[in-house]
């Protein structure tokens, strides 16, 4: 079967048979009611506004925590030591109790 010929014929068929342009009864009235109802728009805008506020608050907290961490730390060496102590703390504890 000639796929190219068939595809051209089907496209011609689609061109020759345009879809109907009938409109459901009182569509414009329903549209106006929908546009008048505050739910969709207001809900969406409120949701977006709250998401923005939450993200800004989150960023602010993250920034404050970062500043506080940097201000209380004594430098990279002490940080490494502290990390090591924390990492081995559990082992030392287990060692102390069990052995």
């Amino acid at each position, binding site marked *: 079967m000639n*796929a*190219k010929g068939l*595809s051209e*014929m089907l496209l011609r068929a689609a*061109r020759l048979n345009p879809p109907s342009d*009938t409109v459901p009864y009182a569509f*414009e009235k329903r549209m*106006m009611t929908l546009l008048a109802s505050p739910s969709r728009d207001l809900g969406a805008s409120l949701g977006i506004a709250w998401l923005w506020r939450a993200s800004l608050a989150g960023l602010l907290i993250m920034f404050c925590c970062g500043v506080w961490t940097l201000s209380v730390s004594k430098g990279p060496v002490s940080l490494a030591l502290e990390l090591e102590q924390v990492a081995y703390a559990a082992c030392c504890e287990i060692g102390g109790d069990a052995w």
Partner: protein
Amino acid sequence: MAARAPHNSDTPGDSQSLVSAIHANVGDEGLLAEENLESGDVELIAAVLAGRPECFEPLIVRYQSRVFRLVRRYARRETDVEDLAQEVFIRAYHKLKTFRGTAPFEHWLMRLAVRVCYDYLRNHQRRRETSWADLGEVEQQWLERYAADPRTTEETDNGARELAQRLLSLLSPASRLVLTLQEIEERPVKEIAQITGWSVPLVKVRAFRARREMRKHLEKLARKNQL
């Protein structure tokens, strides 16, 4: 009815100034003559932007049949068609302040409608229900007639129309969009590029790929039906 107008503080307050603002845009950009704007549309849009949302209703009445016809090219179920048409007018209403009056309102609305339909196709591509497995009797008969002798088959038959719909619904969203705009609505490549926001070379590439995709589907159909 107290629909809220899609205007905010940055839009001028009175409708007359909005009409003149839109008219000024037409003059400033010089793209189209003022008479290209369908009479009445500009005044209605200006009134809506000025805080009289009820003026949007005549615009819906004027363009709803064209929107429904366009939307039916991309969706088959009547519930989907109505949802899409609603989405078109809702978006149009909320984006009305972006209409600059440099082209007829109808063109702006139809561009918006095509984009809404494209979004719909992309969102629904994973749950397409059509396949070659459930060919209807009319389609099957038309196909058999075509395989026997293509000259005896007619494009105006129901079978051809159904088959064309089925074929289009099997294509990827971009392929379906570009083929509908180029082959069925017979729009030039430049206009398709404007509607879709794609570049002209991209439209050409996508049209080429779409035709190839379509032929591939038809070859699969032929193999399946041993035609």
